[in-house]
């Protein structure tokens, strides 16, 4: 327990040391603030933006775009993925489209989407949904098709209907794949929303970075980046927490957790 605490202290100390070196580096070499700001000015910018609730308003906009985009993209991916996985015919006709879109960097569509849907919420939601859609689509298809042959034979030997095989076997069996897809989709939809905001928006953290860039407020941009990584971590953490609850039975995940336990145990 004390060793654990000491390690944690060491970790904090290391971060502090990096920040101190950075601060000293900028001061001694007299690097201009619009090239590389000092950590202290980044924290000052973060403090000011937070106190004035300005960051909070933009955070709310970006979060809304991300979550709606995630919801829309994931719902479509789950529905279409299921249809494709269950029907070879649908797969045959949709396959060229899927391959084409999958190979394309979806964020490159952001400028066109802004032209079509304007500077408001809609264009951001569509970009986020589009980027979140594909990883989940592919994982849903692969997951639903990965049911072990023995298990399918067991269901068939019980005279199960196609729907029963889907609900009782294929869907639960696909859940680890679906959750892996959801985790990627969550981060991707944040990425999509930010890119769309950078291209053209009236509010949001991406727009904030863009406008700070024009005024050469680099410290401000760094502070927004901090908020964005905190947001990404939080969103990912929520999906991971849900996954742990739902997939308590997933052996590979269990190994992962036990592995972490062993690692922690090793330090004490």
């Amino acid at each position, binding site marked *: 327990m004390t060793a654990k605490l000491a390690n944690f202290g060491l970790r904090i100390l290391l971060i502090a040391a990096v920040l101190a070196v950075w601060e000293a580096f900028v001061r001694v070499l007299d690097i201009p603030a619009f090239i590389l700001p000092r950590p202290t000015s980044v924290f000052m910018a973060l403090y000011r933006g937070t106190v004035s609730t300005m960051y909070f308003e933009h955070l709310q906009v970006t979060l809304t775009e991300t979550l709606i985009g995630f919801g829309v993209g994931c719902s479509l991916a789950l529905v279409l993925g299921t249809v494709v996985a269950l029907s070879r015919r649908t797969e045959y006709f949709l396959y060229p489209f899927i391959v084409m879109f999958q190979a394309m960097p979806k964020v490159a569509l952001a400028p066109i989407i802004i032209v079509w849907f304007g500077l408001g919420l809609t264009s951001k939601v569509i970009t986020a949904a589009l980027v979140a859609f594909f990883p989940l689509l592919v994982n849903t298809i692969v997951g639903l098709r990965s049911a072990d042959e023995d298990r399918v034979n067991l269901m068939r030997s*019980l*005279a199960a209907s196609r729907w*029963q095989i889907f609900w009782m076997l294929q869907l*639960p069996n696909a859940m680890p794949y679906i959750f892996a897809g959801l985790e990627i989709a969550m981060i991707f939809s944040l990425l999509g929303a930010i890119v769309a905001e950078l291209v053209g928006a009236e509010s949001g953290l991406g727009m904030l970075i863009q406008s700070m860039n024009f005024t050469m407020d680099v410290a401000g941009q760094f502070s927004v980046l901090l908020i964005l990584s905190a947001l990404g971590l939080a969103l990912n953490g929520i999906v991971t927490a849900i996954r742990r609850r739902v997939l308590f*039975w997933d052996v590979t995940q269990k190994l992962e957790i036990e592995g972490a336990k062993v690692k922690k145990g090793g330090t004490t």
Partner: protein
Amino acid sequence: MRQREWNILQGGLRIVAPAAETAAAREVIAVRRLSKRYGSRADAILALDDIDFSVPDREFLSIVGPSGCGKSTLLKILAGLLHATEGEAWLNDTAIDGPRRDIGVVFQSPVLFPWRSVLGNVLLPADVQRLGRAEMTKRAYDLLKLVGLDGFEHRYPWELSGGMQQRVALVRALIHDPALLLMDEPFGALDALTRESMNVELQRIWLDRRKTVVFVTHSTSEAVFLADRVMVMSARPGTIADMLKIELPRPRSLDVMTTEAFGTYVRRIRAGLNAGGGLE
């Protein structure tokens, strides 16, 4: 489709005949001139050739043979998972032309769903066949107790040993009270000691529940230990090489394996396998 209609037609015609012979030991399974070919005409592989046998009610039949003799194929046909190329298999006077609800199957691996508890796995057939949950749960508790798994109802498969998992699979196969239990090398993946104790266990359960069982294995001693009759198969093409009645008193203990009579049965099976070119 045409095959199926033909079978139904045949079924209609056949109902008369078996009904007359119910006074004798009733046949639960009747396999008539069954053949199975895999692949197209040119390079077809004959997996089963002209298999003909029947199993009376409550008999324990072991099928033993080398790998590739088609014993698993035969079991899949009985389970309705595969269609025969020629001939037919009958279960309680109806032709088997697809999966049916009055058969329980135990596979080589336990095939448990990790997202279902032990109880949930056992109740899977009840869920699929929409049987009364309350009554089935009571049955599940009884059967789990019978196999020595009481107290494990709410555990998950990954918390159990291989032998325990296979017991859960056995209970699952029995839960809907099937007319026939098919077992495809159910203990093949277990270590030798667990396997022997599972054999004793299975005999005890069978004596308690008295199902008609078809048990596929490639262990001669396992086949003899468990069975009322042993069917010996040879490979390429799969044919019946020998059929022998095992007249050892029950319940049999593991000591029976060292007796002269047991050795005689095993030797005769070996001879049958050798004659069929099964043992190189």
